[in-house]
């Protein structure tokens, strides 16, 4: 008991009396620990955060109607969606295509959930506004050029129920039902620039599409943007295919394949950077600790001359170093989390996931590194004859 008391007294006294030097050592350890916990947190969170950025490329899965079924009804889509984790679902946009007439010229109109389309296709550039209410239309740039319309203009769209040349299968069912053409006037809310075939379409809400065609048919295709790895996506495809017979899920290969390639590169970049930085930082911490301890060779000599055993001297120095390591590690893991959070807010505008396990790991690594760094100079000091050490040679 008494011996232990003395041990602690010696350690605390040494820490308090040699305040400035201990502060230097503590700072070094805290910096090392900050880098450790900060970088590892970032490394673990980067795939998730970057994965979300990759959703900029748009839909990575589509639902098609299976050949021999009632088609892609809202109900079937709902059932298909139930196999996808709602947290990972970035956007869902159902599309229903019909050929309509503007000034007697045929144009493809897409009825969609415009909020969903905006989520699945973040790369669409709209000059003007996205349609907010029914009765508004988003016009592809090519169409806008042809008919010379811009945001704010009105566009009169007519639909003649298909007779012989039914344009979609869904519509074919009602082909016999002869109705006169319906004409509706839409307000152009904006024009759409995508660099793709979307520029030749007009986009209206599903409700408008129903009003225009006078019927509610099944969707032609549903675009989904899911934040998941290729394996998870394959699993979703399998379970939807198996459980929902009327839906055929397909992966958009161009997006999923490329995402896997690029994301794994980015991840290994951050991993390698983390390893290099950690390695160098830990060596830096160790050399600083060594410098601080080497300075006290005289003290080691004096204690030896007073009859302390090598073991007890090593124990004391190690105890001191490890205590510093623990305090520095704790400080560092907090600072590291704050840093990682700042990075995440700045880069990705979202908060980082807190990994509780990282705190004990950081503290442990700090203790190990400082302990080892103390051990080397103390060993070399205790190995030497105290008389020589005290004399300063």
């Amino acid at each position, binding site marked *: 008991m008494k011996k232990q008391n003395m041990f602690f007294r010696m350690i605390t006294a040494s820490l308090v009396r040699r305040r400035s030097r201990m502060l230097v050592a503590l700072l070094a350890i805290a910096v090392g620990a900050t880098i450790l916990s900060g970088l590892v947190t970032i490394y673990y969170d980067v795939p998730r955060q970057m994965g979300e950025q*990759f959703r*900029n490329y748009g839909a990575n899965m589509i639902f098609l109607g299976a050949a021999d079924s009632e088609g892609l009804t809202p109900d079937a889509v709902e059932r298909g969606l139930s196999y996808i984790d709602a947290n990972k679902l970035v956007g869902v946009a159902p599309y229903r295509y019909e050929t309509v007439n503007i000034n007697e010229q045929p144009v493809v109109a897409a009825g969609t959930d415009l909020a969903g389309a905006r989520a699945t296709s973040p790369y669409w550039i709209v000059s003007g506004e996205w349609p907010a209410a029914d009765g508004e239309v988003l016009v592809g740039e090519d169409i806008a050029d*042809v008919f010379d319309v811009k945001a704010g203009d009105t566009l009169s769209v007519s639909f003649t129920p298909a007779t012989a040349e039914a344009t979609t299968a869904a519509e074919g069912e009602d082909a016999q039902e002869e109705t006169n053409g319906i004409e509706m006037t839409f307000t152009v809310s904006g024009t759409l620039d995508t660099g793709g075939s979307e520029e030749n379409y007009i986009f209206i809400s599903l409700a408008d599409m129903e009003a225009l065609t006078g019927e509610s048919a099944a969707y032609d295709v549903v675009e989904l943007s899911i934040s998941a790895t290729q394996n998870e996506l394959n699993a979703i495809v399998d379970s939807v295919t198996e459980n929902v017979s009327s839906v055929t899920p397909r992966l958009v290969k161009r997006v*999923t394949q490329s995402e896997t390639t*690029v994301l794994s*590169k980015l991840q290994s970049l951050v991993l390698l950077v983390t390893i*290099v930085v950690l390695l160098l*930082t830990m060596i830096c911490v160790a050399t600083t600790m060594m410098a601080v301890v080497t300075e006290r060779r005289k003290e080691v000599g004096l204690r030896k001359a007073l009859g302390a055993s090598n073991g007890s001297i090593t124990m004391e120095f190690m105890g001191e170093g490890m205590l510093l390591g623990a305090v520095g590690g704790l400080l560092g893991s907090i600072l590291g989390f704050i840093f990682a959070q700042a990075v995440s807010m700045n880069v990705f505008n979202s908060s980082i996931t807190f990994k509780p396990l990282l705190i004990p790991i950081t503290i442990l690594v700090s203790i190990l590194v400082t302990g080892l760094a103390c051990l080397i100079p103390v060993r070399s000091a205790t190995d030497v004859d105290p008389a020589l050490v005290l004399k300063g040679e």
Partner: protein
Amino acid sequence: MFFRMIRGALFRQKGKMLMIAFTIALGASLATAMLNVMMDVGDKVNQELKTYGANITVVPKENSVLDELYEVDGEEIQSAYLREDELGKIKTIFWAFNIVDFSPFIDTTVTLDNGSEVKLTGTWFNHHLDLPTGETLNTGVTNLRNWWDIESGVWLDEQAAGGTQGVMVGTQLAKDAGISAGDTLTVSTRYGKKQLAVVGIYNAGGDEDDQLFSSLDIAQALSNTEGCLSSIEVSALTTPDNELARKAAKDPGSLSIAQYEQWYCTAYVSSICYQIQEVITGSIASPVRQVAESEGAIMDKTELLMILITILSLVGAALGISNLVTASVMERSNEIGLLKAIGAKDSSISGIVLTEIMSTAVIGGVAGYFLGYGFAQIIGQTVFGSAIEMKLMVIPIVAISIIVVTLAGSIPAIRMLLRLRPAEVLHGR
């Protein structure tokens, strides 16, 4: 005398000085590696993002508006074409160096043996091109359709023996028509009939699964459109768009001369499109937003992430170095006390200590730069499979930061020691 003292300190305290030099070298190598990686990461990631395929499409002017619009009638109207002989000019524009790949396309409809009509696209696969500038280039859809899975057979290669007489078949079409790699396929149009060897079956995961891909010449012969192209896909390294680029994309005429110069001489996707339009007669080049926009977002994020990680490691390295320097200066309180006791002036003591530390720092810094070069190359080779370009700018940055950090670490410690009274220091308090 001054130099003798310095030399003495450096050589006699070899171990200690080596440790300081070592730590400074580590810090310098960390700074060098991170700064170089950070400055090059944009280019590297941009290069990686090319796996998403072309980010610019070029179509004939008259066509861009009418084609898709009237296609719904079922009648194929291709009134205008691009000229094949102008293709090489794409590699002569101002940003030619940024054009990674490009490939021409011509579409036609052919009839198979069983009477079914399928779409045949003629293009380059691995085309060898001699440029007007004297350079050579291999380009084609092998790179632009990176995501294709070759389910059986191989990629078509025009440069291989008999390559030009081959055809690649989409997986859906192959399944429906019972075609497998190695078969011979007879395709015909009203302009002629050809026997083509099936080189490979691909899975593109899209509309392309229902069609055929052949070399450009074959598709042109089958559609009687020699020397004509219906579109060109271009994959270019671009700078993320900003306000200026968006304004210019709408109308380059609205810019002032200075803005125009700046826009034209920056690799924005819109300025590259503009330059392509200048060299290809009657063409409209437009960015594929899906690729161009997303590329910008991802590159911005990656660069910002690397900048912040670099800052953290630089701060860490700086603190590490200045800490060690402080510790090693404080350790010498006895020596400084002694020097003061025998009458040395404060300024000459600081001079000696600083010179010692700085010469150690210079040695460490130079070693660290080369060590950092090695680390940067390890990162470059492991992650991207290519060397990281070493920027000259990094050398002064690292040199200045090392000097500043070493001074910042030693001066306060020296001043503190000088304030102490020699007798007390020597007494060991």
